[in-house]
């Protein structure tokens, strides 16, 4: 039981990106989503440190210390880009002008709660923009592995870690499945290639709703 790798998760999430979307990508797997978005739709990526219309990494010799993304990586600006300050940037997020937020998580609860910023007793690095993003965005997709390194489910009835946001996650794509958060819990939408419903049930602790037919993902 392995299912998708990180690129596979990103590829599946890219299918959720629709024409005309402004998208904010978190660090890690979400960053990879940009590589898989269909070329025939209009999409712009926002990075909360102050750019709209973010492009790929620069070629060697063209990197600019004044042009980075929220992961502090050197980037480029596409035609039609704009730069702005942090207050304006989070205004875009808080004002729900950004259509889709994709971010990682340590835990997601079956009511949509998310925990992704703090492990008590361990070094705490801070929430960065995650709390603003999850409190504001109308459409939040979580990209993560289905289980942690100890093999325990990251999809729970209630988060055990300090929360980042409350009842906000709409969809989750893991190495095993694509799930939607509905009133009753995690609705299993799709299986990863080669993964059975039983394997997903076994790896999920939160309330899981399993329809009669659960199709395999089309990648």
């Amino acid at each position, binding site marked *: 039981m392995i299912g998708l790798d990180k690129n596979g998760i990103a590829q599946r999430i890219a299918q959720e990106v629709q024409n005309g979307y402004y998208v904010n990508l978190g660090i890690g797997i979400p960053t990879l989503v940009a590589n898989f978005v269909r070329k025939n739709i209009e999409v712009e990526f926002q990075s*909360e440190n102050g750019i709209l219309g973010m492009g790929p990494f620069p070629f060697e010799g063209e990197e600019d210390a004044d042009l*980075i993304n929220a992961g502090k990586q050197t980037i480029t600006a596409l035609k039609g880009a704009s730069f702005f300050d942090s207050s304006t940037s989070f205004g875009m997020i808080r004002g729900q002008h950004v259509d889709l937020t994709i971010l990682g998580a340590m835990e997601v609860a079956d009511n949509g709660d998310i925990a992704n910023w703090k492990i008590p007793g361990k070094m705490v690095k801070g929430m960065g923009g995650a709390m603003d993003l999850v409190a*504001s965005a109308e459409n939040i997709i979580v990209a993560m592995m289905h289980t942690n390194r100890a093999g325990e489910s990251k999809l729970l009835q209630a988060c055990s870690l300090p929360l980042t946001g409350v009842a906000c996650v709409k969809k989750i794509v893991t190495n095993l499945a694509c799930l939607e958060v509905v009133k009753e819990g995690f609705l299993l939408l799709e299986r990863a290639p080669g993964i059975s419903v039983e394997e997903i049930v076994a790896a999920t602790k939160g309330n899981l709703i399993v329809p009669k037919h659960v199709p395999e993902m089309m990648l």
Partner: protein
Amino acid sequence: MITKRVNSVADALSGVTSGMTLMLGGFGLCGIPENAIAELVRLNVNQLTCISNNAGVDDFGLGLLLQKKQIDKMISSYVGENAEFERQMLSGELAVELIPQGTLAERCRAAQMGIPAFYTPAGYGTEVADGKESRDFNGKPHLLEHAFKADFSFIKAWKGDEAGNLIFKGTARNFNAPMAGAARICVAEVEELVPVGTLDPNTVHVPGIFVQRIFQGEQYEKRIEQRTLSQRA
């Protein structure tokens, strides 16, 4: 025109004393006030409270002040990438208040614009909400957040003129713009101090009224934290 130019970084930081609350612009190492930080190290002021989105890396940015234990408290949204920071925090030498990044930015802007408090949904239902007032608007819970109060703000721009007008470049605008005028005294350092009349009034990002002192930094390292590259085809 009202002249804001001072002749040296020493003059620019005149009046900074131990125990003060300072705002420092920048995101990661992008757009940080390198020359003001170097001068803070030289001045050896301590027991500082620093409002800054990040805390630098071990040997650059605010990391330089942390090495010399000049900072008592950090108010930030993200403080990774810094081993000395971690050591001081875990040992209890350093107090840390973590704030959602958008709230941090808006609390700076609120101080700048004379808004004492505002509501935001960020952090509701989390430990960030502890001790804060909450209130529903449009059926959604929000937290009441207050403007920061600080003694100095140190910001860095690309170009500026003697009137204090500032223009930033790329993503180096970040917290530098909302921290202008957000403290009692705002010190702006620029890569290039241009003659008054050079900047198009239409393209000024921060009008000079928000800046009390301006100087051209002696040099800028502008270190890159994560040099990520695309392969040429």
